[in-house]
């Protein structure tokens, strides 16, 4: 079998691959991340590379323009080497590398994926309530044991238990064989002064770690929110409940497909599950390493880790086959995942440290939603409230302390910048806010971190569409007025388009535009979320006006312009004061659960209490969805503040 050396620029990393391996696969082996939304099907056109040296053959694709072809552009997923190659990965194909620095001064708009210390300090719920007692998943106890003598000659283990019980009320204690094997020698060599780490494990307490001397001051844990698009990690001092640092990074599984379904399909291929599993734990381990290093913490003092994420993400994290999630009747392998050792899942903390996952509700409503409900305190209030988590999969929960019901709607990744021409995730350089002068059609915009614009993120699209509507450039159906002539309006490859920013002065190779196809995609995404919310509220015999509180969560929820979100019909037309932006409620919930055994039990209760409402079998859903495919809605009376039409009685 022939082998070729492929060198990727600008990283200058070389990898040797067998003939027939695609350039995309080669890049992954070389540890280079190239964007790929479709998982290598050759349809998304995001994995462009430039061939600098050598011979490669590509399957034909419409995603490379004639001009690009001349410059040596190839789709890496459709190309295989015919000789040794030198390949350049252009900026537009690269994942923004690395983690987002925690103390970047301008992170306001990134609140969603980067929880700032001030509003999340000490494990407070986002509502400012501190309701859970402090009893972390793993706690350390310093023990000075009385030495045995002829009067007090109970065994070492019983002696250990007796000492622990004299300090804490723990009727059920467990110890693993390996700890028992070490116990005799450890107690004697440390002069009967040891630190025991007690872990809350599935209803019992386990002596997880035994160490000589007093290390009880040094006990740390991690809370993670594992999203389809973004992973957030937080290092927490389990003794003081203090957040020592937060990091957010892109879920590198995105290289294998942008939504959970594509990834589940990818997991079924050769090594697919292994690759997806590694993509997530490698990222988590990197965050753990960086945060512990920055805080001068020994990895051995990190005793536990708590993760919230959707059901598919949890399966992939634990390397459990997710296949059955997407097959009727859509049953996951596990919703309530027992506490396991972190190393079993490949998480590199103390080798005996624990890993817990927030319990999920169903295949398409996961532990991130349980954590979100917990963080919002929805299960503790009399108030009828609604939580809308806007993500690739939009999840919606309705209820109060007596009952909770949830559904999921496949919104697609448009709001997260995928499947739209100039879309990008909410990161540096993304256009996040847009204003269009209704007279001159001139555009003012701002970007995340005020760097030159390189794309448009979800909130930018919401603003852009609302402004295009206000200026009369597009109609309520999302179509451009064919009569308008302006330098910003032109005919593009996919229908008419509006130029938000010209490439001159931006450093991009193309103008940043919104076209009719993008508007159509956003319309579908917002339609799915609105229709699902309406169906759920309706199903329980309520109307939107009955809601006392609406929580908007998700990576982009915090920085969405609310009046514009209502203007395009993404959110129901309710008084603005009923909306609460909760940002990454999943991470807040995960931290609360990490810090309190009470919250763990609460999360179990919430997950058991939430009824799952399957929208796909609801006959009315499709109808409601179709009616939502209009700005703001086919039934204008549902948006009186937008249309000036009064609600029908």
């Amino acid at each position, binding site marked *: 079998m022939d082998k070729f050396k492929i060198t990727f620029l600008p990283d200058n990393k070389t990898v040797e691959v067998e003939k027939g391996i695609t350039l995309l696969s080669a890049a992954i082996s070389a540890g280079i991340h190239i964007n790929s939304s479709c998982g290598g099907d050759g349809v998304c056109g995001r994995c462009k590379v430039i061939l600098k040296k050598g011979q490669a053959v590509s399957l034909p694709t419409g995603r490379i323009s004639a001009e690009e072809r001349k410059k040596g552009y190839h789709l890496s997923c459709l190309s295989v080497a015919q000789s040794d190659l030198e390949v350049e990965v252009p900026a537009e194909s690269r994942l923004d590398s690395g983690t987002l620095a925690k103390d970047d001064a301008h992170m306001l708009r990134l609140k969603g994926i980067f929880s700032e210390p001030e509003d999340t300090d000490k494990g407070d719920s986002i509502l400012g309530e501190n309701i859970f007692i402090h009893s972390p998943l793993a706690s350390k106890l310093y023990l000075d044991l009385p030495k045995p003598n002829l009067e007090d000659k109970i065994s070492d283990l019983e002696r250990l238990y007796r000492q622990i019980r004299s300090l804490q009320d723990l009727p059920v204690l467990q110890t693993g064989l390996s700890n028992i094997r070490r116990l005799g020698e450890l107690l004697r060599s440390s002069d009967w002064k040891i630190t025991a780490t007690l872990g809350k494990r599935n209803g019992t307490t386990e002596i997880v770690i035994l160490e000589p001397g007093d290390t009880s001051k040094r006990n740390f844990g991690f809370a993670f929110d594992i999203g389809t698009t973004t992973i957030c990690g937080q290092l927490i001092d389990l003794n003081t409940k203090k957040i020592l640092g937060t990091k957010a990074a892109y879920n590198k599984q995105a290289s294998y497909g942008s939504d959970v379904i594509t990834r589940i399909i990818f997991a079924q291929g050769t090594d697919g599950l292994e690759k997806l599993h590694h993509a997530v734990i490698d990222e988590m381990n990197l965050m753990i390493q960086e945060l512990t290093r920055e805080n001068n913490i020994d990895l051995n003092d990190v005793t536990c880790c708590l993760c919230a994420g959707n059901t598919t993400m949890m399966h992939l994290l634990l390397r459990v086959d997710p296949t059955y999630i997407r097959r009727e009747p859509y049953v996951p392998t596990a919703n309530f995942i027992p506490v396991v050792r972190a190393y079993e899942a490949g998480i590199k903390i103390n080798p005996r440290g624990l890993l817990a996952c927030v319990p999920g509700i169903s295949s398409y409503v996961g532990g991130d939603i349980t954590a979100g409900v917990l963080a919002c305190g929805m299960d503790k209030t009399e108030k009828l409230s609604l939580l809308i988590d806007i993500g690739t999969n939009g999840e919606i929960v309705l209820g109060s302390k007596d009952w909770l019901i949830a559904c999921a709607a496949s919104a697609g990744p448009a709001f997260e910048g995928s499947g739209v021409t100039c879309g990008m995730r909410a990161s540096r350089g993304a256009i996040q806010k847009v204003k269009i002068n209704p007279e001159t059609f001139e555009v003012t915009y701002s970007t995340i971190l005020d760097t030159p614009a390189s794309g448009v993120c979800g909130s930018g699209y919401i603003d852009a569409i609302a402004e295009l509507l206000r200026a009369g450039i597009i*109609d*309520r*159906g999302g*179509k451009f*007025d*064919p*009569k308008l002539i302006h330098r910003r309006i032109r005919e593009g490859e996919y229908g008419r388009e509006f130029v938000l920013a010209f490439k001159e002065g931006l450093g991009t190779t193309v103008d940043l535009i919104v076209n009719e196809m993008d508007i159509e995609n956003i319309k579908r995404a917002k339609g799915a979320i609105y229709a699902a919310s309406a169906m759920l509220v309706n199903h329980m015999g309520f109307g939107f006006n009955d809601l006392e509180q609406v929580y908007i969560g998700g990576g982009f929820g915090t920085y969405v312009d609310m009046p514009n979100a209502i203007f395009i019909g993404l959110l129901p037309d309710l008084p603005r004061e009923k909306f609460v932006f909760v940002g990454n409620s999943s991470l807040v919930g995960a931290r609360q659960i990490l810090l309190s055994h009470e919250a763990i039990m609460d999360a179990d209760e919430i997950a058991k209490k939430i009824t799952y409402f399957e929208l796909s079998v609801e006959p009315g859903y499709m*109808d409601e969805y*179709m*009616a939502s*495919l*209009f700005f703001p809605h*086919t*039934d*204008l009376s549902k948006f009186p503040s937008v249309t000036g039409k009064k609600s*029908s009685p």
Partner: protein
Amino acid sequence: MALDLVKEKWSNAVAVVTIGALKDEGGTRSSVVRCGGEEGLPFLFAEGKTPHRPVIAMEVLDVEPDDWPQSLTSAIGPAIKNPVEWAVKCEKDYKADLICLRLAGAHPDAQNRPAEQLTKVVKDILQATTIPLILIGCGEDKRDNEILPLCSQAAKGERLLIGETVQANYKTLTASALADGHSIIAQSPIDINIAKQLNILISDMSMSIERIVINPTVGALGYGLEYAYSIMERARLAALSGDKMLGMPFICFVGYEAWRAKEAKASETEFPTWGKQLERGIAWEALTATTFLQAGADILVMRHPKAVELVRKHIDELMKE
């Protein structure tokens, strides 16, 4: 014991659309057609008034149709070669309520007739007839956007019903109709949401709802008729319940649909057991039409004189209280 009929109370009536303008209204018609205005479901007179009976428009093409079966063309006779004579025949001999002129010859794939010829046909028909006129383009957006505004101008003041607008192409024609005082047909593909959305889009251009007629798109008997029926029924129920953006009269192109059906077109040699082709075609068109009357059709656009006669009789019967 006397049985009390359960009566539904409705909160809204269908808008009344007037087609054609009399001399003192700025037009040249000797009569006008008013359609819509229903206050209840079709023919349930106890629940609400039906102020205007359903009307029949007869379809006339600007060029001799090349895909109509002989059983249809021969019923019209030699006049089919001349749109003006054909229209006069519809008015005088067949007692049509309206003429529906379809500018089939404008289509780029057909004869791509120059605009002057098309506006002339419109003017000539208006001159030769006294009943109101419905004007339909060739169905090719670009060409329609070019010719329909010219025809609209040529018939300024005649209060035509002009069409068709669709969701992806409604602005040009709506603007012309607004300027020249015509009403407009809003076509949607058997989809209640798109029907309503298009009405909103057209109203957003300040066209009043008394100047919009919905073409819900129908299917012939055996070709999706019940689906189209249920969409019309739902739209009408919504309209009567208060939804003004669905409260417009319906126009149904039953002739176009029925004469595409295999059962109407197939020859007797092909299917000897199906009976006479002529009767089959007429029955197919008449049955399709009468079905949509029950769904709330206000304007039926038909082709065969015999079918028109049958349906008119049927409407007479239905309208007897």
